[in-house]
């Protein structure tokens, strides 16, 4: 069971941080102090602290968890920083999490494109859990990404700065990590698509189409069909609107080597014709976040810099989010996927 140590009623008291009463009163006797049990979230006045253990017994101060955030606790970030939501959508194994993991892997090697710099993240452990299979100490022969769990609808916090703007405030992004199954269920059912309504004021929506399937003539039509259906359903359900900046990304671009395929003609054109008038902006790109080694013309994180550069640009109608997306509890299928939790878990 989690125990939250509440801030004392007295403004100057740092009991929530130190476990010690301002007036040196035994906490059991202090009238201003109390412990809460369960899933309650406590605001201390500056930053939220949630404790796993009773600090009186352990003399330990619990720090933020560093995990990915859930919708229920995302306000821990949005109340501290103006954040831009980047929703990354797409079917199972399309490369959504690999894209997110690659951004963090690239930053660990240095600035991206010698232009975009890492300024912090309250989800470092969350990133690490999504990245470690791309590293030698995971023991893997080939770089992989842990599959996003079926129920997951999470966010990773990332603060970035641009070259020449190091002295300005960082831009804070919340990158979604949503399971492909949830997306596929949403494209099949309006009932489930309703769950996507949490996507309030997205800075960018990225729909990832699995390039490996596009490269396969047998599977190509079906994967494009899935994208069309999802986008159409999102538009019809007012999830996407004339305020949506939609970027369609073809992943795994290295799979097109040696294949005679005109993406513009065979993929982009029909999607543009169908949807460009129904969203604020519709753009396309092809990336290879983690190309197979030695693929001629491809380097690690191919196309990711351009994607980030676009995210760093303001959105004409953007309103920086400083609030929590509110979800009404319901018995809808979508909400069954959510796992309730405490901030920083």
């Amino acid at each position: 069971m989690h125990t939250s140590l509440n801030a004392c009623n007295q403004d100057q008291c740092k009991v929530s941080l130190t476990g010690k009463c301002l007036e040196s009163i035994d906490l059991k006797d202090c009238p201003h102090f109390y412990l809460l049990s369960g899933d309650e979230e406590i605001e201390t006045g500056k930053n939220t602290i949630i404790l796993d253990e009773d600090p009186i017994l352990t003399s330990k101060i619990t720090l933020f968890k560093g995990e990915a955030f859930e919708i229920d606790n995302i306000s821990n970030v949005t109340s501290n920083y103006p954040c831009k939501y980047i929703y990354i959508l797409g079917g199972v194994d399309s490369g959504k999490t690999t894209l997110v993991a690659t951004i963090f892997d690239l930053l660990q090697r240095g600035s991206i494109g010698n232009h975009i710099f890492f300024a912090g993240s309250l989800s470092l452990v969350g990133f690490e859990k999504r990245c470690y299979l791309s590293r030698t100490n995971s023991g893997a022969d080939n770089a992989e990404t842990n599959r996003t769990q079926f129920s997951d609808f999470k966010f990773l916090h990332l603060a970035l700065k641009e070259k020449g703007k190091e002295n300005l405030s960082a831009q804070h992004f919340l990158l979604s990590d949503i399971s492909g199954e949830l997306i596929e269920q949403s494209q099949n059912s309006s009932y489930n698509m309703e769950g996507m309504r949490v996507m309030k004021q997205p800075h960018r929506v990225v729909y990832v189409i699995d390039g490996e399937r596009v490269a396969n003539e047998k599977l190509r039509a079906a994967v494009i069909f899935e994208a069309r259906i999802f986008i159409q359903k999102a538009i019809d359900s007012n999830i996407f609107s004339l305020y949506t900046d939609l970027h369609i990304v073809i992943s795994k671009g290295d799979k097109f080597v040696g294949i005679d395929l005109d993406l513009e003609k065979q993929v982009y054109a029909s999607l543009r014709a169908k949807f460009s008038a129904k969203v604020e902006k519709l753009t396309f790109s092809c990336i290879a976040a983690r190309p197979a080694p030695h693929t001629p013309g491809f380097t690690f994180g191919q196309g990711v810099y351009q994607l980030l550069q676009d995210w760093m640009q303001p959105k004409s109608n953007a309103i920086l989010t400083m609030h929590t997306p509110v979800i009404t509890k319901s018995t809808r299928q979508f909400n069954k996927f959510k796992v309730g939790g405490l901030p920083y878990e």
Partner: protein
Amino acid sequence: MSKNLLVMGLAETGKTTFIAALWAYLTGDIEDKELILNSLRDSEHEYLNNITKKWMQFDDLPRNRDIGKPKEILMNLTVTATRDIFDLDIPDFAGETFREHFDSRSWESDYDQRLQKATGILLFVSPYNPNNHSVLIADAVEITQLFATAIHDTNQDQTLSTGGNAVPPTPSSINGSINKPYQHEYTSNQVKIVEELQFIAFHHPEILPIKIALIISAWDTIEYCENVTILPEEWLTLQMPLLHQYLNCNQDKFHFDCFGVSAQGVDYENKKLTEEMYSKSPEERIIIRYGNEKSNKITKPILWVIE
């Protein structure tokens, strides 16, 4: 006046060696000292004297493994240039303490209280540690392929004569392991250090901005040639790029500068070089690289932090 410096760094990053060399400097008979030890009265120095004796004898120093229980070190000092008198409080924490913060997502209330009083940070990193940054499988494959090509070219005759096939080593064959679930030990040091700084910024914004002297230890192993100069910040950019970016982007919180420090002066494994050092005075062993400046002034990072 009191200056409370937090000595941070993961295990085996040279924290204790630095403190031993500092104590040797302060107690030694050295001309033109920048920092002067005022008095040995009313203080306990058993730990300091012990580690300093070992340092002077070119012995390996004992590792402090007591998580959360630092060796208390308090010195009453005067800055020669300004005549300012202050108490320097630099507790020697075990490196495991900082690893534990990342792993357990908690720290001792004693550490928390010291943090609240901190007026500066000495942050140690070691160039020896292979986990300073993560190695991507993509990069490892490129490297192993290059090696394989070189080996193939060199041993072509032998390979042909045996009829065997040269199989480049794969990351797992280097590593000798198979896929494992995530563990904190897989996370690189630079990520762990960034997280420690974020913990400080998030949980104790009241002590910000704070100065950080980033000390790259064993500098003698980096700048081992007279005619090769690498600046400490360049090393940081190359070897711990995420940490460098974080510090650069958060100068409103952490005012940092980089120092290359060799408090030991020599790798004890190198018997010949070590024996050559015997004839030198203790302070001559020390190497401090600060920008383009090279000296043996161990006080440099401390003076920079407290100024």
